[in-house]
């Protein structure tokens, strides 16, 4: 049997997010009362506790807040992927989110390196927001 790729675990909170990424759009919830853009997804604004929000489209630009280079194979699917970069991306709009970074020589990636988004179509349900050096 083919090794299965680990996939996101969509919850009622994150299902809209994964719906948008499938269309290659990065969207997060913006509070309609105080304007705060939040991540992770949730019912309420963590700044003002408002329950009113809309999913706004983000620029897909950001920088590497921090990163690690994974050498150990935690899941068979990664056997031919190691070493790979796991990072926290600081989005231009503020929120931090995890993601993989590609397209850098590992010795060139730095905390603060600018990155832009592309979408890795993992299967028919999920496209993963992924990051590379800006063109």
């Amino acid at each position, binding site marked *: 049997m083919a090794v299965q790729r680990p996939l996101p675990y969509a919850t009622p909170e994150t299902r809209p997010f994964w719906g948008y990424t499938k269309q290659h759009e990065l969207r997060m919830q913006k509070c309609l009362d105080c304007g705060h853009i939040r991540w992770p997804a949730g019912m309420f604004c963590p700044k003002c506790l408002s329950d009113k929000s809309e999913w706004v489209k983000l620029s897909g630009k950001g920088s590497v807040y921090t990163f690690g280079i994974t050498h150990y194979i935690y899941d068979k699917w990664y056997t031919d992927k190691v070493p*790979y970069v796991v990072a926290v991306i600081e989005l231009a709009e503020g929120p931090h989110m995890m993601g993989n970074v590609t397209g850098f020589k590992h010795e060139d990636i730095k905390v603060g390196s600018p990155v832009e988004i592309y979408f890795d179509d993992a299967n028919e349900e999920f496209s993963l927001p992924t990051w590379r050096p800006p063109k």
Partner: protein
Amino acid sequence: MESIKDKVCIVGVGYTPQGRIPNRSALSFHVEAARNAILDAGLTPKDMDGILAQPATGDPTVNAWQISQLLGFHPRFGADQSAMGATAGGMVFHAAAALIYGLASYVVCTYGESPLSGGYGAGAYGRGAGDRAAFGWYGANTGYSLAARRGIAKFETGPETWKEIAVNQRKWANLNPRAMMHSKKMTYEDYYNQKFYVEPFRLYDICLVSDSGRAFVMTTAERAKSLRHRPVYVMGVGQYHPAWDPAQADHLAGPIGAVPSGEEAFRMAGVGVKDVDAAEIYDCFTYTVELSLMGYGFLGPGEGKDFFKNGRTAPGGEFPVNTSGGLLSESYQMGFTPLTEGVVQLQGAAGDRQMGPKTNTKEPEIILVSGNGGVLQTHATVILRR
């Protein structure tokens, strides 16, 4: 907060076999550790009326009431409690409150886990929760490696500092027959020769995984006087939980919860960092030791390279840290490993690793203990004295 200074004591510690121990449930480790702690204090089931248990990772068969039943007592006070690695420190708070207000007379606090031998918690440390596996983010290794990389970017730290922490602690483990790494020496070369797990961490930056339990018993200072061991007093406590998931946290390079929880504990204890003879620091990773001691004010950002060198925190050093070998080299019982080691050192019951003439170190009067959970998400500080 009302001061609890010197009102309660830790009066017994319970150990179990630790390492790869087949055919043992997590529950059995809780029960054995609790039994041994009760016996160590010189108590019987008839004396016991309080219990706090840290349930094993996801194991529904472990709870406080099952443990008290198996040890033959009916608690008046008890709970399952978890703040991950900060749980043991948090239990000291809750037990203290219960004891001071007369809700209980003797409280046993317990931990047990069997992740190596197929217990319910097996694999929990390496699991990719939620969306994480899709990004190759697994367990604590990834989260703490990302924290450490942020540290490297913000102040001078890295393997040069961390190797000192790993090697110094191993020297303590070499004096501790219970330690999983008791017979295994470590040189700087050994440290660098290990492969990366999640870079910047090599194998010896990462704590052990153990089948084991650990427990301690608390009572009032008044009752402690007539028990078996020299009482170990709780001088100060503090908690602070930055809480944010590492993917959203902005404290990965500090300041972590050690700062406010340390300030609170020192204020209550009426002492400062200069009065502390040794520290038992929650060391899930080498970097956590550096970051926690920084938070308490023992060293400034970037000073780690010098702070730990020349065996300063090793046997024979002027400031012993993690004198059992710690989570890195003794055994992983979450916050129970550092807390119980602080107690045993102050009891004078630490055997070959006892601080004082035996290890060419200071006779300890005051020891600081930290607990840290999640990825720098929870923090508890306990200051103990003899």
